[in-house]
């Protein structure tokens, strides 16, 4: 171990002395950001942190210290972050934050703007939507580590065979789905998150976004809605809107071209069915394309192209950004913060991002990494996402960062499931969802 350390240090020293300045960051990390110290991270059981767990030994060696990763499930992580915030002194140096959670957490996270400036972090290299996703109340509350959009994947081979255009509108999606559904044995039109609760709730918020409206009455700004300023007056649900009805009609149509078991389909299952050729199109969190891109037996491998969320009749081609950021809890003592910041800086560096892609995490929220040929070869999806980021087709407002976001997902995902399952009309489902959301907002005291 000691000799290995010696080796890496000498090479680092050599690198600093002889190679161009753009590599300075690499050398800094090779020195070891931790310098023998220990860092505690409260993490989510999602791909990027699972990669860290897998290469934990190497990671600690690179950092030159101990990295304690407490990996939790989604609900438990949220409870722990909230509990930790009530402690006098934080138990963790870093916490991982999902993009829509900033609204809920904003009062107890450290503003990182000063550190960004001081350390000269190249923040413009990050995708704009990812970077601004953590910007609330004029504060930079987190640095993107695994933000990726939910986009639209389709089988190029099948589309060409059938002479179909890449679907950029919901109308085209339905036409393609109709043409391809059942055209081969075991082939369905489209896979998506239709399982009850959070999966369907997220689908509804995002698809409603691509129909042109967020689920609550946020203020419209140029090219979207104002994510950074959501006040009580913006909390009114909009499930009684015309857009909601369009969204509902689209989802009801999708049901006709969906694979068996769609009502219980969620997250990776849709990708697996798509991977083995069970459906011609799928909504997908871009990073999860690794499931088939890294699997030599997957039928979809190498045959997939990507688009942003297809737009509804009056909507826009806009994909929802989600995923994870690293933040510093504001009850962390001052003397730990510099160390915490340097770990953020190291973990979100282009080199480390490229490293994560080697292990099944096809996410690269920065322009420079997205152009790395090796990265692109591993993860064909990354340049597509980079292009979408550049052309403003990625945004975060579809899932408003308000404390009630989880209740919103749950109510939408529970109530509209009634419609999808045929137990209730879509109109009644939307009405009931509107009523319940209204009740949640009133109970929370917004109006």
């Amino acid at each position: 171990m000691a000799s290995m350390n010696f080796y890496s240090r000498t090479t680092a020293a050599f690198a600093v002395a002889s190679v161009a300045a753009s590599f300075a960051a690499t050398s800094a990390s090779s020195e070891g950001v931790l310098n023998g110290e220990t860092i505690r991270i409260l993490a989510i059981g999602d791909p990027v942190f699972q990669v860290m767990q897998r290469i934990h030994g190497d990671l600690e060696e690179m950092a030159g210290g101990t990295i304690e990763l407490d990996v939790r499930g989604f609900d438990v992580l949220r409870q722990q972050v909230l509990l930790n915030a009530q402690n006098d002194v934080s138990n963790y140096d870093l916490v991982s934050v999902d993009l829509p959670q900033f609204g809920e957490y904003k009062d107890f996270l450290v503003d990182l703007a000063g550190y960004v400036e001081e350390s000269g972090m190249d923040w413009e290299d990050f995708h704009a939507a990812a970077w601004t996703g953590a910007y609330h109340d004029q504060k930079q509350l987190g640095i993107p580590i695994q933000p990726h959009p939910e986009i639209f994947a389709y089988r190029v081979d099948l589309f060409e065979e059938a002479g179909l255009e890449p679907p950029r509108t919901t109308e085209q999606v339905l036409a393609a789905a109709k043409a391809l559904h059942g055209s081969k044995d075991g082939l369905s039109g489209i896979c998506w998150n239709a399982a009850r609760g959070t999966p369907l709730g997220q689908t509804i918020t995002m698809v409603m976004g691509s129909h042109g409206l967020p689920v609550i009455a946020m203020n419209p700004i140029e090219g979207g809605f104002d994510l950074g300023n959501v006040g009580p007056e913006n909390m009114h649900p909009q499930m009684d809107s015309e857009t909601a009805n369009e969204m509902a009609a689209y989802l009801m149509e999708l049901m006709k071209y969906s694979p068996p078991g769609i009502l219980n389909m969620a997250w990776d299952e849709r990708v697996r069915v798509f991977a083995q050729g069970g459906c011609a199109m799928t909504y997908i969190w871009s990073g999860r394309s690794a499931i088939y891109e890294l699997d030599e037996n997957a039928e979809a491998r190498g045959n997939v192209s990507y688009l942003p969320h297809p737009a509804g009749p009056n909507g826009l081609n806009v994909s929802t950004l989600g995923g994870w950021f690293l933040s510093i809890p504001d009850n962390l003592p001052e003397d730990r913060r510099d160390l915490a910041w340097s770990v953020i800086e190291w973990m979100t560096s282009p080199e480390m991002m490229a490293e994560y892609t080697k292990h099944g995490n096809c996410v690269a929220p920065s322009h420079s990494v997205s152009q790395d040929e090796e990265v692109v070869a591993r993860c064909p999806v990354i340049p597509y996402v980079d292009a979408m980021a550049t052309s403003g087709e990625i945004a975060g407002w579809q899932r408003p960062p308000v404390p009630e976001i989880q209740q919103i997902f749950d109510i939408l995902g529970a109530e509209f499931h009634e419609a999808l399952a045929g137990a209730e009309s879509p109109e009644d489902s939307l009405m009931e969802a509107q009523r319940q959301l209204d009740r949640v907002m009133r109970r929370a005291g917004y109006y």
Partner: protein
Amino acid sequence: MSLLREKRKIAFAMISPSILVIVAINIFPIIFAVYISLHLWSFGRGEPRFAGLLNYEDLYYDGRFIDAVFTSAKFVFFAVLVEFLVGFALAFLFNVKVRGMATLRQVAVLPIMVMPIVAGLVWFYMFNENFGVINWLVTLLGAPKVGFLTDLDVALFSIVLADAWQWTPFVMLVMFAALQSLPEYVYEAAKMDGLNGWQTFWRVTIPMLRPSIMIVIILRIVDSFKMIELVFMMTQGGPAGRTEVLPWYLYVTGFQGLDLGYAAAIAVCMLIIVTIFTQFFVARIGFGDDQK
């Protein structure tokens, strides 16, 4: 006299820690749940605000809650019914003295050892329509795929089946032990009284097993009423809420929605419901001579 008092004091001092522990473990959480249920309190969003019976009032008008009550009732009814009938029949089967029964019995209780969450995962995959082995078998037989977890009329029974898979052996075990402990002489008396097998079963065996039957039913009612793992792993309450049992709704409101006051109100209602039900059966455990 003073010595006795002294002894009493010491005795009290000795047992008071355990009384405190019992109060702390059993009573305090219930009191605290009732207390929280009288407040509006969203975790992480400020201090609890007193709200009186508002949470309960909201529950009364909450269709999802009412639906969950009936779904729970339906689930408990069918799960306990299946587990009891099958477990009871198996107990009789295993009571037959045949070579190999003891081994079979040991194998039969294995599902009890499985963690419920793992059982849920296994059944989720088995019932899955795209990867599931059961639908694979169904299609091999030439039948159309069954929406075990997505069909409105089937999903709850899929969960009942998974629950029964896990807990029928428990019923079997308890009833088997009870059968083994029935005195032989009563059966001889029944023979001499001229009762045939059927009459003996209904007039002697069943009534004598009543305490065990009641206990096993109480345990299964309470336990299946609290069942959440299978729903969590298999359906998350779908399709269209047909499997949304109370514990799952409580989880959604309390642990996802973080609406703690509301979740506490649900918990209190659950406690009341389960208490009423179990008391009904507890009163019927004995042969009835305590009621004199």
